[in-house]
């Protein structure tokens, strides 16, 4: 029986047929603004609020304050409280990118991982993490080692990746093969703003719905709608939302 970790995101767990496989690593890809960081914030926040699971949030992209503001802007009012009492441990870019000091941050992080205290982890973003390695071979090797370390320490992980959806031409990075699951967030401009979609492209060991679903980002975070649309980048008039 495969154990699942619920994201607690409305609609997403249904598409995933229950949640993300426990201890796996899932890559969240999308263009800037597609909602990757919000999905990750929500995953960590819900972990504490709904499932009593502690989380670690690693951000090379934002500092502590940006994250708090982002969380509060979508109604995650208890974010600061959870960070304060240690239910959510944040390593922000100021900590992670302190000059020449990523290795000491890494050491603290690895200690945290071994504590078995945390169940969820977010790495935002994979591209920044990979900057610490020199060759393609090294990047792949250490991504695999990191995912092994996370799995063995019982962490269910989301990593973000700056990458557009892959229609119709594809240039799929190797990281897509190295992780257990791939979720794409897609946004297309419309007259009135933007339409958002989510696509669970791959989940190892799991039957998932592979349609593309409309989603929205609003107060309370991401909501995924169950009525799958016949996906078309071209005509957005009959948006199913």
């Amino acid at each position: 029986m495969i154990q699942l970790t619920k994201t607690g995101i409305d609609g997403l767990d249904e598409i995933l047929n229950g949640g993300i496989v426990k201890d796996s690593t899932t890559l969240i890809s999308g263009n800037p603004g597609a909602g990757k960081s919000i999905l990750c914030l929500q995953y960590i926040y819900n972990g504490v609020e709904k499932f009593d699971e502690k989380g670690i949030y690693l951000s090379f992209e934002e500092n502590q304050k940006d994250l708090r503001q982002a969380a509060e802007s979508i109604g995650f009012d208890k974010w600061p409280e959870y960070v304060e009492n240690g239910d959510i441990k944040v390593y922000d870019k100021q900590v992670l990118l302190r000059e020449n000091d990523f290795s000491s941050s890494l050491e603290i992080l690895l200690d945290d991982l071994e504590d078995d205290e945390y169940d969820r982890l977010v790495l935002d973003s994979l591209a920044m993490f990979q900057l610490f390695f020199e060759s393609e071979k090294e990047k792949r090797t250490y991504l695999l080692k990191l995912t092994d370390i996370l799995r063995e320490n019982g962490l269910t992980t989301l990593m973000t990746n700056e990458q557009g959806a892959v229609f119709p031409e594809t240039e799929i990075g190797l990281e897509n093969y190295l992780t257990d699951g791939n979720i794409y967030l897609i946004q297309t401009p419309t007259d009135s703003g933007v339409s958002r979609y989510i696509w669970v492209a791959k989940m190892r060991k799991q039957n998932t719905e592979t349609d593309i679903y409309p989603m929205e980002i609003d107060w309370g975070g991401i909501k995924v709608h169950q009525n799958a649309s016949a996906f078309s980048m071209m005509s957005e008039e009959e948006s199913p939302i």
Partner: protein
Amino acid sequence: MASAELLQTLGNKYSAEILDATDEPISAQDLSDELEIPIATCYRRIDELTEHDLLELHDNILSDDRRRIKVYRRNVDEVRVGFDDGLSVHVEERSEVTNKLDEAWRTLSDR
């Protein structure tokens, strides 16, 4: 002088091959088999390279027949030789980030 001595060590037969093969920790016996180096020479080279911090004793692992065996890993990513202001040899050590991940990953398999 130290720089010349370092170059000498690097230039000894099999030194470069040994450094090339020790990306991941490996025992002297495996090095000897893999690179077809006589075992005594292999040990001598390992000692020399270790003395100059180019190679390090990474761990004592338990072999299949439950003996402790030493495994070695290179400690260097790059060596630059300059002659501008007299002979200089700069050794670029392996990044600590990769070292730490290697170590954490290695302890997983020990559990």
